[in-house]
């Protein structure tokens, strides 16, 4: 199956639909023209903009990443996705009805802490482990 794919891939290799698109053996089948491969975005949550600084002491806001788009795993040199996801992509290709596509998932998460007042003027410091996404499977 891979041999056949490689032959077909050589024909369409030049017309990548997106500048950030990763080289993949599945490109022409898995991600049709017009669809986006997974991109990493940054979202800044501003407690100041929310008008919450009367009860949130710190931080004033925090930034987190999120991913949007479809995963496309390179099977050649720069392979940083998990083998499981690559395997799932392969099996999906062969049996698309029974095995779903591999979805992008966070691979690195960090903690974040918030310091705030409650209604009784007590102060609460809450630490959330594995809360902020630093990277995802595609990146």
């Amino acid at each position, binding site marked *: 199956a891979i041999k056949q794919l490689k032959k077909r891939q050589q024909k369409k290799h030049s017309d990548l639909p997106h*500048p*950030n698109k*990763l*080289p993949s053996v599945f490109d022409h089948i898995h991600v049709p023209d017009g669809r986006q491969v997974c*991109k*990493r*975005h*940054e*979202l*800044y*949550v501003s407690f100041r903009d*929310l008008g*919450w*600084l*009367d*009860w949130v*002491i*710190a931080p004033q806001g925090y930034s987190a990443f999120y991913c949007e788009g479809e995963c496309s795993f*390179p099977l050649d*040199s*720069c392979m940083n996705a998990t083998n499981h996801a690559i395997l799932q992509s392969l099996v999906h290709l062969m049996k698309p009805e029974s095995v779903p596509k591999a979805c992008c998932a966070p691979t690195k998460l*960090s*903690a*974040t*802490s*918030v*310091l*705030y*007042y*409650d*209604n*009784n*003027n*007590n*102060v*609460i*410091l*809450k*630490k*959330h*482990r594995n*809360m902020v996404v630093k990277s995802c499977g595609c*990146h």
Partner: protein
Amino acid sequence: SFVKNHLRSSFIQRKLSGREKREMQREILSILGLPGRPRPANGGQFPSSAPLFMLDLYHAMCSEEEDDGGQGVSRPLFTTLSTQSPPLGAVISEADTVMSFVNMVENDRDIFHQKPYWKEFKFDMTQIPTGESVTVAEFRLFKTRSFSRQFNRTLHISIYEILREHANRQPELTLLDHESIQAGDEGWLVFDVTAASNHWLLNSKYNSGLRLYVENDDGQSIDPSLAGILGRRAPRSKQPFMVTFFRASKNQIRSTR
């Protein structure tokens, strides 16, 4: 070149719509375990001892997260006079939630009553996070130099949990912690009140507060105010407070979002 292009992936910052903003607010409040945004009566009134202490803790936690070493917090927090209190580093690292409680009540011995002198403190622990257990609880008090001229005199300070109050006789007390310091010392005193806070968490109606006694080497009772112990009427940055460290129970299941 692939790696170079790939790492330089686009960071897009866009303005959220009103609905998205409300959903995000709800989501953040839900993560914090809050039904709605808190409305503190005196929110933002700095500087006050508990928020300042908590801000110090927050910075210590953040620097630990940045280091990502898991070595624990080594920074001194609100330098204390207490010699017995263990370093908080590991406690802070393991804590999921830390709460400081404002002193709600402060009673002094009635001047018409006989000695000994005492001072009582009480904290409202009814609004504590669910599914978490107390690892450490501390009662923090500020002591100025004693009003007596004998600065090198030793003072023995004891903290008791009030187990039960009675109408016409002394309440039932249990000793929680004690500290011996010089009358001339000035700084924060830390007392371990973990046992009491565990009792109050299990049954909040038995929360009758803490009682403090000060004695000299001869066992004579000293008025806490004359010994330099500050209470509710002290400057805001030196008012007593209680801080409790919670750890989430391991079998707590977080719902999928």
